[in-house]
């Protein structure tokens, strides 16, 4: 499940995106049609509205599946995972006079 969720998420996001593009283009077409016919209509046609809302719903589901696992909000839980090796390394000050240079064979 966890490995197929990103691909399923990607498919749903693409689908939602296409539907959104299609509904926005339909709106544009509809408005230009109204200009030609010189009718004034307040609402969009029903099918375009439904298509927009459906695309938003599909997009939401896709994004939730696609997003990487969320991190905890409490700093406490994040800090509990820290180890001394991670916070006390001081990488700018490292020296090379240790046994690693003597014990490993030169390549």
């Amino acid at each position, binding site marked *: 499940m966890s490995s197929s969720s990103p691909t399923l998420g990607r498919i749903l996001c693409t689908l939602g995106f296409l539907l959104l593009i299609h509904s926005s283009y339909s709106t544009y077409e509809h408005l230009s049609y109204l200009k030609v016919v010189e009718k004034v209509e307040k609402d969009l046609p029903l099918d375009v509205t439904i298509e927009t809302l459906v695309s938003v719903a599909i997009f939401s589901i896709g994004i939730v599946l696609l997003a990487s696992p969320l991190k905890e909000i409490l*700093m*406490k839980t994040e*800090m*509990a995972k*820290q180890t*001394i*090796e*991670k*916070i*006390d*390394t*001081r*990488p*700018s*000050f*490292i*020296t*090379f*006079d*240790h046994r*690693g*240079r003597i014990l*490993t*064979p*030169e*390549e």
Partner: protein
Amino acid sequence: MSQFNFAKASATLQDLRKTGERKSALVVSLGETIITKGHANKLGDEVWSMYEQVFIAALDLRSNSLAKTCLEKLETRFPGSPRVKILQGMELEAEGKLDIAIELYKNILEEDETNVAATKRMIASSKAKGQWQEAIDSLSKYLDTYYNDTEAWLELSALYLQQHLYQQARFCLEEVILLQPQNHLYHLKYAEILYTSDNIALALREFCRVVELCDDYLRGLYGIKLCTQRLLNLETASNSSQQTSAKPPTSTSAVSPISGYDVKTLYDLNALATERILHAYSRQRESGDDLKVFIKEWLQVL
């Protein structure tokens, strides 16, 4: 490796870059596979940080050919960059030519006085040469300007600890805690320095702070247990000496003149720490029962 998961490898390398951990063997094995098997072009702009990371790890393990490959790629891409010159200096340091490296860093600093990396590498070179006093002096001078550099304060504290100057090391850790008060591991280090330099009462407060910031942190619980035990022993020792003198014995609810804590609090903390430690060990199912029995006995004796 039969199955080389490129995505996992590059994610691991990225994590190690973020935390700054020094896992050179892992970095060299992953980096070597990525570079020699030609996966490097999949990384995009990240590849230069990866070359830098693999270069430093290769210096740690004396993989000179891998180090030279990485350095050449960086030199061709960024000719004359001070950051690449720092890496060249690190290579000289790794080969043992510390004086030439220090000359190189001095040149970089002459061109640009504010280059922090060059200052830090000069301090590291004095450290490698064994010139402790010089390293401490230059690091203190650096910290006068850049006083919010946690890494540098930690390094100064480590230098003082090597020379057993616990007062000064303690001061550096206090600065670190000012900068990052939420990190329980800095409080732990501070508490252990205090315990080593015999400030038991203050050490007890800091160990309690560690356990407050990170629930059931075993090292903090052990610290509480050791501190309360020592304070209680001091308490009973002073009580027995007072009984031989003409003074009446102090009641157990009075504040202890030595530690400033009342004895009941110390007993309660001791019992709480014991209980939490035993609880932590009872959760693990892998450890054998004889080990648990041994720990229980040791905790009673402690």
